[in-house]
């Protein structure tokens, strides 16, 4: 379970998260929608401690992410995250990209890590690209590799930050298919997305963010069909 309570976060004078609270239960898929600069990416980075928070608390499986004594690197192995920008490790092959962290962080043997890597790369449809370098992959393939890389740590949670927004339209589908598969398998996920149809299809709940505040959260039917807040309706009118 991910429990976010009254989180405040600013960059200098700029308030980026303003009293955000959100609980994501095991197996749940929660989508976050909202305009540019509303704090969506920042929230994901706060969840696995890549960004500090000023007040409030974030707990993952009961462990305080931002507490002093927390072994953040250990906690991060439970939380996979895939970013908007492709960030393959350019000096490693696709398989090495995926097995690096299992070997170095989880201390798995090469054989063991390779087996996991192969399995995850097949899972995302890259079973035939193991020994290729990332530069030879398309954007969609790079993003699927990033998903496999995160999954190879066998995380309990997956966070996706607009993973399709830098892709050519014809490559979006293959990445969404991979995420759809994960949702079906029962992975707990938070996804920041601009793909409203996709959010509607896979989410248990959808949250709407504006200027660092969570204005509304509810079932996809409520948010897309019958939004309770004028801000939500306005935003949806502008993107749909």
């Amino acid at each position, binding site marked *: 379970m991910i429990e976010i309570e009254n989180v405040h976060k600013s960059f200098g004078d700029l308030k980026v998260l303003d009293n955000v609270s959100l609980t994501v239960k095991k197996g749940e898929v929660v989508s976050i929608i909202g305009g540019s600069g509303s704090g969506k990416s920042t929230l994901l980075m706060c969840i696995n401690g890549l960004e500090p928070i000023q007040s409030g608390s974030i707990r993952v499986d009961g462990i305080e992410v931002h507490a002093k004594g927390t072994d953040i690197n250990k906690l*991060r192995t439970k939380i996979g995250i895939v970013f908007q920008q492709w960030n393959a490790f350019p000096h490693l092959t696709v398989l090495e990209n995926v097995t690096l*962290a299992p070997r*170095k*962080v989880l201390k798995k043997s090469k054989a063991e890590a390779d087996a996991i890597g192969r399995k995850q790369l097949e899972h995302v449809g890259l079973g035939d690209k193991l020994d290729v370098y990332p530069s030879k992959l398309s954007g969609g393939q790079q993003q699927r590799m990033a998903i496999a890389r995160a999954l190879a740590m066998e995380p309990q949670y997956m966070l996706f930050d607009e993973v399709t927004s830098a892709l050519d339209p014809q490559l979006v589908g293959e990445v969404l298919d991979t995420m759809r598969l994960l949702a079906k398998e029962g992975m707990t996920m938070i996804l920041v997305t601009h793909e409203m149809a996709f959010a509607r299809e896979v989410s248990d709940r959808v949250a709407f963010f504006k200027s660092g505040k969570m204005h509304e959260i509810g079932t996809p039917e409520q948010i897309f069909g019958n939004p309770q807040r004028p801000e939500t309706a306005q935003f949806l009118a502008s993107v749909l």
Partner: protein
Amino acid sequence: MFQTSLSLNDVMFLLQGAGVTLLITFWAMLGGTILGIIFGVFRATTPWWATAPLAFVLDIFRSVPLLIQLVLVNAFQAIAGLNISAFVVSCIVLALYTSAYCSELVRGGIAAVPVTTRRAARSLGMTWWQDMTQIVYPIALRIMLPSWIGLTLGVMKDTALVSWLGIIELLRSSQIIVTRIQEPLFVLTVAGLIYFIISFPISRLGARLERKWREND
């Protein structure tokens, strides 16, 4: 027909000089690279005000002509009675001089590794140290290598200045022979050829590594 008084002994003398040049270059690059990495990593990972004194000292090494540094350090160590040989003084001064340039290369190489790539590494649970050794170091190395090879070749040519401390390296040994047999063009051509023969494999090696890495990009 072409005739020369350059004897086999003279050629051996030149090769000996070349050996000295190589040896000083080796120690200067070894010391300069190790120090350069330490200084460069320190400057890349610490706020500027904490590294300002170091940056200032390194700037001195880079801006004062090497010849002046060599002569001054050698004079001061003699006055202080340290009794360090001219060879060791040369290696130390050249290593510090090299480290100043190398630290800039290292700093630039580290800065060129995208923040997003490093964030991805940390998000997988890698420690700061694992990020530095597994991600930053290999990527920065590829970025830095061409300039580092250039630095090596430059330092090798700069070693000619140590002759001012009485060390007989390649250039000095060729001058000695020129003075004796009075065939400056021929002797300097031979010396130049030896410099080239030393440099060529170094630049080839660099080019080969670069090509191998580029195949992946």
